[in-house]
């Protein structure tokens, strides 16, 4: 009986030692990973900051104005003026009846030509 107790105690010590050893290494691994992720986050942040700066630089009003002028024939962008405001009251509501809508559309098109 006593031999059995000694034996099982010895086994338990070995098992716990093994477990502690494993936990120790898992912890070290996790810490390394955290370190890696931190470094990665820092790099990503730096990259984001750089991209933000570049985005702001590419969207600077001076450049947009030059581009709007250069591609005027395609984009036809003009400075916004008071004439560009519309009013919802001036927009015709679509009639309930879809067939009527065609008639209204025809009428509008006819009127504009």
């Amino acid at each position, binding site marked *: 009986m006593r031999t059995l107790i000694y034996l099982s105690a010895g086994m338990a010590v070995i098992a716990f030692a093994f477990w502690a050893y494993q936990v120790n290494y898992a912890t070290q691994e996790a810490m390394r990973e955290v370190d890696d992720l931190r470094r990665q986050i820092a790099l990503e942040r730096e990259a984001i900051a750089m991209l933000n700066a570049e985005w702001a630089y590419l969207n600077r009003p001076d450049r947009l104005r030059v581009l709007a002028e250069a591609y005027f024939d395609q984009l036809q962008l003009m400075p*916004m003026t008071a004439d560009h405001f519309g009013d919802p009251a001036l927009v015709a509501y679509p009639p309930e009846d879809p067939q009527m809508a065609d008639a209204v559309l025809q009428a509008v098109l006819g009127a504009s030509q």
Partner: protein
Amino acid sequence: MIRRPLRPLARIMTARARGENPDRIEAEARAARMRQRHKAERLRAEYRLLLLAATFLLAFGTVATRMSVLAASDPQEPRVASAASQIVAQRADIVDRNGAILATNMMTASLYAQPHLMVDKPAAAAGLARIFEDLDETDLLRRFSGKRKFIWIKRSLSPEQRQAVHDLGEPGLQLGPREMRLYPNGRLAAHILGGYGFGREGVHAAEVIGSAGVEFTFDRYLRDPAEGGAPLELSIDLSVQAAVERVLAGGMRLMNAKGAAAVLMEADTGQIIAMTSLPDFDPNQRPKPPVSGDPSDSPIFNRAAQGVYELGSTFKIFTVAQAMELGLVGPDTMIDTKGPLTWGRFRIRDFRDYGPRLSTRDVIVKSSNIGTARIAVEIGAERQAAFLRSLGFLDPVPVTLPEAGKTKPLVPKRWSEISTMTVSYGHGLAATPLHLATAYASVVNGGLRVTPTLLKSDRRPGEADRILSEGTSRILRGFLRGVVEGGTATLADVEGYRVGGKTGTADKPRHTGGYYDDKVIGTFAAIFPANEPKYVLVVSLDEPEDRTGREPRRTAGWTAAPVAAEIIRRIAPLMNLRPLPKEGGEGISAVHAAN
């Protein structure tokens, strides 16, 4: 130590004579010697034990102390400190009211030399001179040949320059990482942002510090790690600022002015939407302050917040406002405008003779100096000074720019009656365009004194800030609209936005005293929409001259007013301000009031 013999001859002789055994004497002596040795050995052993005990006590004591210290202190992760994320957000960004970036950081490299590590000094100097145009080869070589072991060469490099330096392959040239400030919009809002410089610098990092503008004022906030890199939100609107700068630059060229300033302010809150001063500069390379000449000619001089000018007839509205508030005149009271008005050796004239009498409204609309001066005399010097103080004209503008705080308006040394008269129409008191914008906002927004600010905030003036009654403010808005509808500023009208405003033309003072005949400051203070003003715009041109007519025209109505109109035409839609129908007319049906 005297060593005693084991068998002392004298005693043995006596013992033998008595017939005793001499061996006993020897044994006695031997025993005594043994006792002595034991005693010494015990002493030494005791000493050793004590030493051992002390050593153990010290060792275990150290362990115990260390353990208790560890147990009492907070747990700490030693790796956190090494994370590189600290470097990225060292200085917070500056953004406009919509979140667009006005200033941000960028990683760059600094270049330094360690001459004692150099392989080929002449080649290094020649190579650097080839890469950087502003470096001189002989000068570099001289610096490399000196005794110094560390030399800064460049504070920040572009990626191309970095590669070129790498390609030189010189081990004595080293690159160090650091952050620099970047203003991606270039010259935009240069005077507001200011500029940056490097503070303490090391090989691995450098401190970025603001050298002017909001960068300087909010330096501590921007660098505070406790803010967690939260950006500084300005009240500026990037696109509006860009439009104002562009139109103003065009107007300045057309009017042949040598400088210009514009301030756009929210009438209700005092928030500055756009503020510009021309000529301007690139904050990425902020020029050094001039050492000679007139500082106001330098591009870094902020005409809007730093330049004090006599703002001319734009002041008349304040005189009339006070007189109406005091009940001295009503909108239709007839004022004597027979000229010239003589006071001692002074003569006050009008630009044109407006007849013997004008109503209060027409004094403003036609801009009569004589009429305003007569009203001012009624008010009196003391009350006038108090009212101008309440509008902020006698103190530096409380805006968060370093140069504004140092700029005190020029006021009459002795506020005599003639000063009262000239100040009433804007002569003899010099203030900045920002002062004027603040005062106009306070007068037309219903009479609440606003505090100009460059920061986005929800702060609004309350009843405690009241300086004029609601009714007076409404009448004054009508006057200002009248100036544009049929007075001195008809060129300032913009269809749909009901611009109101007041022109001001002031002769420039000579440095030697007196005034120039042909140099003026043309100012136009505009409000729009006039019936319910949302914005105040002050445009000021330095030495404008419209040469399109037969003779040069310099009055603000011909110079500053049309520039202001063009600015409003461009920016009002940008600020989502819907055009209003024509007053009295039919206009477009069912257009709601501006949002």
